[in-house]
């Protein structure tokens, strides 16, 4: 759907990359039909269950499609961009969009900060503490989003949760206020997503030649200085990857919000775009509005992806 628009640019890029490729590895000139044979199952599945639904999503967003049309009681009518116009007039949409962006940004920044700090910490400790931290992080990483959500809710439960006891908050409810509910979800999201950053960055730090770090520390550089001036620049490719992955994951948070705030919070105060689209479609049967929200999300994430590709290309990565 959106790919053809950029194919011109891709075409140019491809030519350049391919030329580089053929020079470096002539072995790759081989049978022409076989790669397509190998690719066929993947393309069939992706075409049928990814590309086609995307096309359908765009289509539904252009029609008037509610319960009456789904059950076949009324004919579908073409609306053009009517659904989008309705969406953009809706104050709640803008509110949800803003909340999504701010929430995702907060999650990404917290996850990266925690993940990188702990990766550096891992390089400074001996085996036992390192093993303990690694195992704890793997446990958090492996926990399914839905169980993580219920467990964190229970920890912060107003009546029976240990956190309120320890902090002496009485029966303060964390899910009642808008910000405290978002904060609670943020904690859970950071908890289950920092291990990916930590493990990846740690693997990256270990691949940095030790002489470089030794030289820096002999020159009297502080930990922060070493990170900022030596490690961060050397780890840039890895940092780009984990940042973009985090942006994509956190922008799409669904289960945590849905479970922890019970479908978007009181009066929808904790909605993010994903939950909003779902509620519009399946709770209010406004399938076309839900689809329009989906298209907006798709476009935002596509923009993020294009930035990612540019960054990769600037680093001279070969696809």
């Amino acid at each position, binding site marked *: 759907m959106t790919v053809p628009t950029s194919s011109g640019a891709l075409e140019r890029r491809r030519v350049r990359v*391919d030329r580089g490729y053929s020079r470096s590895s002539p072995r790759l000139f081989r049978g022409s039909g076989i790669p397509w044979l190998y690719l066929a199952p993947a393309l069939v599945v992706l075409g049928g269950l990814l590309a086609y639904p995307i096309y359908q999503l765009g289509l539904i967003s252009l029609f008037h499609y509610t319960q009456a049309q789904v059950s076949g009681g009324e004919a579908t009518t073409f609306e053009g961009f009517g659904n989008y116009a309705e969406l953009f007039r809706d104050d709640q949409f803008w509110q949800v969009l803003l909340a999504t962006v701010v929430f995702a940004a907060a999650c990404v920044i917290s996850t990266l900060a925690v993940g990188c700090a702990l990766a550096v910490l891992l390089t*400074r400790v001996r085996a036992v503490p390192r093993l303990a931290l690694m195992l704890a992080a793997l446990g958090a990483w*492996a926990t399914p989003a839905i169980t993580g959500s219920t467990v964190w809710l229970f920890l912060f439960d107003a009546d029976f949760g240990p956190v309120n006891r320890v902090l002496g908050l009485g029966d303060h409810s964390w899910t009642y206020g808008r910000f405290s509910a978002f904060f609670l979800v943020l904690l859970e999201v950071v908890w289950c997503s920092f291990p990916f950053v930590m493990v990846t960055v740690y693997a*990256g730090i270990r691949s940095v030649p030790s002489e470089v770090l030794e030289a820096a520390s002999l020159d009297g550089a502080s930990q922060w200085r070493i990170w900022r001036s030596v490690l961060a620049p050397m780890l840039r490719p890895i940092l780009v990857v984990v940042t973009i992955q985090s942006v994509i994951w956190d922008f*799409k948070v669904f289960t945590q919000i*849905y479970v922890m705030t019970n479908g978007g919070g009181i009066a929808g105060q904790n909605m993010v775009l994903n939950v909003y689209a779902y509620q519009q479609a399946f709770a209010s049967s406004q*399938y076309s509005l839900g689809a329009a929200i989906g298209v907006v999300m798709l476009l935002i994430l596509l923009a993020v992806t294009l930035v990612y590709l540019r960054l990769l290309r600037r680093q001279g990565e070969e696809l």
Partner: protein
Amino acid sequence: MTIVSQVRGPRVKPVRRFGRRPGRLAAETAALLIAAVVAFPLYWMVLSAFKPAGEIESTEPRPWTLAPTLDSFRRVFGQQEFGRYFLNSVVVAVAVVVASALIAFLAATAVTRFRFRMRTTLLIMFLVAQMVPVEALTIPLFFVMRDFGQLNTLWSLILPHIAFSLPFAIWMLRGFVKAVPEALEEAAYIDGASRARFLWQILFPLVLPGLVATSVFSFISTWNDFLFAKSFIISDISQSTLPMALLVFYKPDDPDWGGVMAASTVMTIPVLVFFVLVQRRLVSGLGGAVKD
């Protein structure tokens, strides 16, 4: 366990990285404390699953229990169809892991071992496909499944999950396939191996470790899925999966915390086991995916 061995690696030369500093004790204390904090929610989950009802619903929660009981687990397994849900989850996850691993292996081989028109375009499209918000596609997929009469069947969960785990799997497997030396391939052909023989009897076993690492991600996303199960399995509850069983106990107004924690424990353990089994490949696998 490679993480363990990796973790042990630097101990041989402890002074190598940053030198011995007085701050190390502080750093190690911090690491242990943070590990405890990170592990605490899981500890609390398992603990609460074993606590008797009176201790869970107590306003003085204690971080231990003197009277562990299996009551909550009994309630979970006593729930009419829990075994069925568990089995459904396993069937869906295994089907997705096996199918997406095989399909991704073929596709990754095609894009790393061959040069053909559109190769780079395809790679970029796989990358873009990773970004597609799965949740937004629930709406059209619902209608696709309805039109093919697949609502309320496990196929409605298996097929979309294969599609959604493929792009990442292909992208990640590339590194593993690339790492197999070309000389090996040439040698195989010189020895008269057919293309299929090379693919399945030489390349496949060599890439298998990477395939296992990759499958963690498809396994987790499938096992965890709750949106599709909620949206596509609407009337035939016998086709439901574990997350829905968990939600039976979780009623926002009056949650049965013991049941929720026991069901959460049951649901988390297979993932943890899977993770521990494959974690040795995970770090190197991520390194590979990150490097290319």
